[in-house]
């Protein structure tokens, strides 16, 4: 085994090109990490919403809440089903919700995007305890008051507390701001369900959320609703509903896959190239080591270790370069729901580790060929080289 000190010595001797390699690989890994962070952010903004404990009832065949309706009669039938959990005050945990999208201008784009307005009752907050009012006050039932997710307030015009916006004849007053811990609800506005129904002349709900007492009740309520031919409703877990929504974001997944693929190849070719240069300039040195009795295998390993070390440093540099994107908050449209998904780029543990691992693997693969050619170099020829 050749001591690591030798490799480090080599790297410091070629300071400029080592730094450039680290920076080059760093840029590649930074791009990769940023793209993964984007996907991660969008994904968690959609998928982490919804609880596995809650059932979501929608019209048969409706892909999203927007295209679903559940009549008030159906709601009453569901509410009467046995097995629904009760909250601390004894009220059944069932939340009828009405969803409508509104096109609202963005701060950086006057054309605007579709933002989802969810009409709810107080039970919606009991069933989703992570939705918390952070500024202002709660809307009052029956009034034209709305509360707005912080991420929407930050990116759309006219959505701060005290603002008013208008659709048709109806005015909507913003009275509060809420935070939903980076779930899908962080891309929404909430108001009273009855008020929204009247304002938009909708005499039905979009969906009904039910919390069963236990696993058994979960299945029996599901079966009861699906089996009732009057209802023509479909039931899935709230979690599953949001997981299914990611098909509307397939474009991002494809993009991330393309970027990762090309960037990995780039990183491999990059390390290969620099490692070839690195060993070319020290052919005599390596030959001397061979002459001193170091085995081919040892030389091979030493070159690979050096290459892996450089790209590991590159990976770390990339992580450092990519960290600032963590704070970026932006949005895209989920083409499944045609509404805005507000998200933050998220560089978390798995993303960071994946980025660094890819760097390391690229380093090892990239170092392989140069290492083989270094180990194979005929001693006499290399020693004679000037």
């Amino acid at each position: 085994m050749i001591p690591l000190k030798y490799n480090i010595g080599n790297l410091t001797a070629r300071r400029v090109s080592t730094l450039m390699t680290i920076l080059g690989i760093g840029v590649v890994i930074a791009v990769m990490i940023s793209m993964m962070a984007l996907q991660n952010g969008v994904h968690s903004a959609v998928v982490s919403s919804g609880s596995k404990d809650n059932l979501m009832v929608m019209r048969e065949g409706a892909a999203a809440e927007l295209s679903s309706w559940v009549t008030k009669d159906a709601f009453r039938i569901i509410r009467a089903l046995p097995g629904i959990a009760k909250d601390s005050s004894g009220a059944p945990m069932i939340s009828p919700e009405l969803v409508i999208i509104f096109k609202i201008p963005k701060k950086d784009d006057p054309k605007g995007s579709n933002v989802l307005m969810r009409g709810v009752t107080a039970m919606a907050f009991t069933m989703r305890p992570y939705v918390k009012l952070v500024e202002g006050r709660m809307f009052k039932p029956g009034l034209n008051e709305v509360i707005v997710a912080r991420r929407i307030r930050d990116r759309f015009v006219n959505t701060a507390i005290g603002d008013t916006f208008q659709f048709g004849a109806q005015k909507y007053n913003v009275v509060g701001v809420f935070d939903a811990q980076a779930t899908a609800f962080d891309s929404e506005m909430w108001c009273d369900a009855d008020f929204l129904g009247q304002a938009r002349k909708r005499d039905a709900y979009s969906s009904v959320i039910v919390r069963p007492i236990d696993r058994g009740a979960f299945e029996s309520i599901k079966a009861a609703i699906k089996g009732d031919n009057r209802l023509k409703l479909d039931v899935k877990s709230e979690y599953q509903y949001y997981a299914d929504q990611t098909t509307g974001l397939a474009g991002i997944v494809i993009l991330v896959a393309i970027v990762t693929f090309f960037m990995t190849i780039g990183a491999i070719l990059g390390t290969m190239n620099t490692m070839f240069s690195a060993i070319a300039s020290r052919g005599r040195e390596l030959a001397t080591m061979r002459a001193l009795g170091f085995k081919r295998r040892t030389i091979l390993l030493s070159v690979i270790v050096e290459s892996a070390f450089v790209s590991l440093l590159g990976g770390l540099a990339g992580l450092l370069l990519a960290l600032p994107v963590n704070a970026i908050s932006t949005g895209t449209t989920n083409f499944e729901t045609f509404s805005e998904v507000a998200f933050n780029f998220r560089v978390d543990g798995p993303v960071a580790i994946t980025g660094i691992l890819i760097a390391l693997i690229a380093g090892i693969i990239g170092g392989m060929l140069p290492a083989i050619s270094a180990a194979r170099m005929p001693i006499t020829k290399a020693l004679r080289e000037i």
Partner: protein
Amino acid sequence: MKFAKLIRRNLFRNKLRAILTMLLLAVIFFFVATLLAILDNFEEFSNSGAGSNRIVVQSAISLATLLPYSHEQKIRQLPGVVDTGKLQWIGAYYKEKSNFFANFAIDGEKMATVWDDYKIDPKQRAAFLADRRGALVAEALMKRFGWKVGDRITLKRQIFAFDPELTIRGTFVHPVDTGSLFFPMEYFEHAIGDRSEVGTIWVKLKDPKQMAAISQQIDAMFKNSDYPTETFTEKEFQQNFMSMMGNVKLLFTAVSSCAIFMVILLAAITMSMSARERVTEIAVLKAIGFEQRLVLALMLTEFITLTIIGGALGCFGAHYLYAFVDMGKVTQGFLQNFGIHAKTLLICMITSAGVGLIAGGLPALRASNLRVVDGLRRVV
């Protein structure tokens, strides 16, 4: 030109290194060309409505809100309007959810007046108009799913509570729209229970210059109704969809710039390596009378040739690959008519030359500036 051989020999003095560098450039420029082409593709989609003198009326509230039919009658009476037609996005898919494509219910008889840019065989048009459950399909879409005229197909519901069961009655050709299916409005009305509401109303105007004025007139007319409208030119209407995706342009530009920056760094390493190797040689050239400027020019030409070859491999490779492979099929309809334009090729070639100049500039300058004695004395 008399130095061509010298440059060529120098270029490949270390074959492996030259090939690796070219390969790196090829991969990165393949990637950059692809990203640019995707942007172009989106842009084309946005501009697809540019030449038409149609405007689109939709609800100001949101995409998902429908407009009452009475709006259409009022719009048709405005001066300057040739005709109007209703179009409803259905959003159904064929068999699998991944077989997503554009499908609409349309006022069939209005395809002759409002949508007169769709080329349809007269016999097929008549057959389509005669069948309440007929379908008119873009030729490229027919190919994608292997359909034939006369086939019966069933689409699966996504938005509205019915699965359209259709018989393909004809095909159409349109310069931009290569992926849509249309079926009659009557079927849609019947299936959802006649609500007399529709997503968009398309308005054909006599004079394209009147687009802005009539749009404002329409929006003003319905401003205080329960169904306020927002009227766009066809181009703006398409652009709205693109802007919904978020800032794709910024993202792609940033990713491309980073990729090119990386290539410059890594190319610079190899080039300085290759310049350092031949200081003795350069000193000899200078000693026998080559001017410093000539030496510099020779080396730069060599480096730029290297990067141009690499870049060309990448972007022309992409160009031919996409011409050969049907990307519409591969991406499940996400990229229609996908290809790399001459403009993108040119941008890539210029950039790759720039990479050579920037990465090779300093090493070439240093090598050519070396004093002859130093060069000859130095042991490499």
